[in-house]
């Protein structure tokens, strides 16, 4: 579904991504783990089209999307839940969800998906006329996920969904990610919380200072000595 081939990305003079390749197959949950500043978010931003790679290519759904503008990529069914949620705090919950469906024209389909989102996140339904900025961190994460789902993604990129949330909420969010995946959406997940990420992922890549240092099935990585030491607290 997604092949990233040897991409190099720069922030000005800084070489942030040094030749990363990865692959996500249909129906999988793939985790990208690594410490702060390893280049996880940059990788996602490049796939989403917010940044352009200097070299390398990104193939999604058998189409080359390298360097395509972000808004065109979304309408192809690839959507990102950005780091720090980035909900539109000055707009209501309902309006945020409508923005998620911005590229769609099928009114009936939008209404159906809106209902589905409210079923998965009943708390959003209760607060649908409230400004998104007044929601709690967990609710904002749910809104960010719901908003992305409104674009009817085939591939969902998630950047640090657990960031800043209480452990109980993290569990809830990860359960929802599993449900989203079970209902047919492929997921590429970036996480610092390697434990949680590996517990739900099929496959994982370990990123260190712009390079992939390890990859394999989530099970293999979870039991690997190097990963345990570096990311799973021994």
């Amino acid at each position, binding site marked *: 579904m997604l092949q990233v081939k040897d991409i190099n990305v720069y922030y000005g003079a800084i070489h942030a991504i040094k030749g990363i390749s990865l692959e996500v197959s249909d129906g999988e949950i793939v985790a990208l783990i690594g410490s702060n500043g390893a280049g996880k978010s940059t990788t996602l931003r490049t796939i*989403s*089209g*917010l940044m352009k790679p200097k070299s390398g290519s990104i193939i999604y759904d058998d189409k080359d999307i390298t360097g395509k*503008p*972000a*808004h065109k990529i*979304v*309408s192809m069914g690839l*959507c*990102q839940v*950005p780091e*720090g949620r*980035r*909900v*539109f*705090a*000055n*707009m209501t919950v309902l*309006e945020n969800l*409508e*923005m*998620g469906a*911005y*590229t769609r024209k099928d009114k009936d389909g939008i209404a159906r998906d809106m209902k589905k989102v409210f079923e998965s996140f009943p708390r959003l339904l209760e607060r649908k006329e409230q400004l998104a900025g007044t929601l709690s961190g967990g609710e904002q994460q749910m809104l960010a996920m719901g*908003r992305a789902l409104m*674009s009817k993604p085939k591939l969902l990129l998630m950047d640090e969904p657990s960031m800043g949330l209480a452990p109980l909420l993290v569990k809830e969010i990860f359960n929802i990610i599993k449900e989203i995946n079970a209902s047919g959406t492929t997921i590429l997940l970036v996480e610092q919380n390697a434990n949680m990420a590996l517990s739900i992922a099929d496959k994982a890549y370990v990123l260190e200072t712009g390079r992939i240092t390890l990859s394999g099935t989530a099970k293999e990585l979870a039991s690997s000595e190097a990963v345990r030491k570096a990311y799973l607290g021994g």
Partner: protein
Amino acid sequence: MDTFFGQLCQQLINGISLGSIYALIALGYTMIYGIIKLINFAHGDIYMLGAYLGFFATTALGLSFFPAIIFAMVGAALAGIIIERVAYRPMRNAPRIAILITAIGVSFFLEYTMILFVSPQPRTFPSIFAATVYNMGPLVMNSQQLVILISAIILMTVLTYIVNKTKAGKAMRAVSFDADAARLMGIDIDRVISTTFALGSALAAAGGVLVGVYYNSIDPLMGMMPGLKAFVAAVLGGIGIIPGAMIGGIILGVVEALVSGFISSTFRDAAAFAILILILLYKPTGLLGKNVREKV
């Protein structure tokens, strides 16, 4: 005492009609600032351009008021889109000061290009309305003031509807809050920015035509002072906040009218800029502005 009260009400009427024109111009300032964080110093010249478009629509094309104002608004909207595309878009990632200087350059370009083509001589705006004067007891309101007020209210209502209820308007609010997040929702921000320039420029042009109707005289440099005043109005209401621009414009107009009525009309401009200084000293975020939360 009666004459004082009468005078006060009279100045309020004058101030509100002047202020609604400031408000129309200020709206464009604030919308453009909201979306690309640019103080568009060429905005006052778009207002001048609108006045001229209205002038030619009524004189050369012989249109009446309503089609003339629409003509001016559409023309200015196109001009706004072109200016953004040609002058500002290439500077999108340049430092803020560079694009600000570009805006000043665009302002001079518009002013002196107009002087080249229409001469610096002021033109007499045809009186499209019979100058009826309505007497309400001691108060006087003329038909021009009434037209200004009604037009401004209609335009602001339409704008509020567009921004709050339409998909394009919601996209504008989304982009102005967080452009990257908006792109991740599939919003083409270039298109949203073009729409914003079109809307803002159309409102300024409407203001230009209304001023032409009110003062009967237009010239290529007429946009400088109202442009600055509208900027003050936008800052007063809280730059980037749409209802703020409306309130700021009206307040500024009323203050100016009161100062000219009760003190001296020579202090009019001083009063406007004193407001700017005071608001920057005591509430830099403007009347409706909240303390800005820094994004991390």
